[in-house]
């Protein structure tokens, strides 16, 4: 997901693996000019990694390029940075998250072939919350269990779920249609996809507690240029 310079010539690698979840590896001498690992340890590229060690930081012994995802560019690349920052901030080390890993690999593949970014981001955010133990319930009201009415207004409490709102003026209220579309991964409608984006953002922020995402700040600055 990301590498950090470590000592004179090494790299610390924050990797997301299928079987072991998020792990930290040291890639010795990977910053030397002729290092074979230098070009291989690239974020957003599927790799096959071997390592030794039991401590918090393991030693990378081999990194092979698996390929299949072309290098990301433009907006897709920026979205992918956001996914990586979410994983780094929210996943504990060494907890396997196989379903999320698959969702992440799908997202990168979809970015690389130029699919629209919003549906990819929403699906990933939902999968991430689910893996963290906060799966969203988008088709029923909390407490009453009543079906969500597409035409009524709701707020979504991160701890409780969907709550009926008095009207559209209620703070953070979304129309029921938004919750149902989000549940079904339908993002064709401009209004519901905007509301879904704001809703997911507030739910992710809740899990981040007070921490700000660097990637969001950087994108904001880029938009201001």
């Amino acid at each position, binding site marked *: *997901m*990301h590498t950090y*310079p*470590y*000592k*004179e*010539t090494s790299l610390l690698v924050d990797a997301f693996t299928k079987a072991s979840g998020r792990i930290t590896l040291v890639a010795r001498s990977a910053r030397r000019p002729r290092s*074979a690992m230098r*070009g*291989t340890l*690239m*974020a*957003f*590229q599927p790799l096959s990694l071997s390592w030794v060690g039991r401590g918090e930081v393991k030693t990378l012994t081999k990194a092979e*390029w698996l*390929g299949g995802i*072309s*290098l*990301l*560019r*433009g*907006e897709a*690349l*920026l979205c*992918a*940075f*956001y996914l*990586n*920052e979410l994983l*780094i901030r929210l996943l504990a080390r060494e907890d396997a998250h196989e379903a999320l890993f698959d969702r992440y690999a799908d997202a990168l593949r979809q970015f690389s072939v130029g699919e629209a970014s919003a549906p990819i981001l929403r699906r990933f955010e939902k999968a991430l919350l689910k893996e963290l133990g906060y799966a969203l319930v988008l088709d029923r009201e909390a407490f009453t269990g009543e079906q969500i009415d597409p035409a009524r207004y709701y707020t979504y409490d991160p701890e409780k779920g969907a709550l009926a709102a008095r009207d559209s003026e209620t703070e953070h209220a979304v129309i029921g249609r938004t919750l149902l579309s989000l549940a079904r991964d339908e993002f064709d409608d401009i209004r519901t996809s905007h509301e879904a984006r704001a809703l997911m953002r507030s739910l992710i922020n809740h899990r981040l507690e007070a921490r700000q995402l*660097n*990637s969001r*700040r*950087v*994108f904001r*600055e*880029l938009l201001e*240029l």
Partner: protein
Amino acid sequence: MKSQGTLSSLEELIEALRCLPGVGPKAAQRMAFYLLQRDRPGAERLAAALGRAIETIRRCASCNSFTEAHLCDLCASAKRDTTQLCVVETPADLVMMEQTLAYKGLYFVLMGRISPLDGIGPRDIGLEVLQKRALDGQVKEVIVATNFTNEGEATAHYIGEILKGRGIKLSRIARGVPVGGELEYVDAGTLAQALVERRPV
């Protein structure tokens, strides 16, 4: 001034050396002992050179790289093509480009790259300065030579965004198999991308 927080000269030196990239407390201690024990003249030269550099070296008004004058030698040269501007990440990249002898235009050195995960955004590198420089009326073509890393690619994307539709020809240096490179020995990533970016023969 004597207080609990005051460091001895030795501690102060070790602390100061830690500002170098990749230098932790142990390496800093090793360097400090080496300088004091084995190479005091070397230490004096280093101290004097650092002091002078800090006082005299500043950013070139044109390319953003280091210089002691208002303009660096390269930017002040009458022999360069002032209509071409090549954008690189670091002064070291500029030196590499110069070694090719294949480029006669001017440069702009960003002094970094956009790295969202490290919190490095457009304001932390010279993107706004670049925009002004590229739109000063002299420049007709901007050649983006940032690294082929995700960060270099993101930086290239945003250079494109801030310059597009402004009447400037914009290009990105090509990547591919090294000259004299035999396919068998090229890394898979490079070869895969060379295939994606193939051209008609």
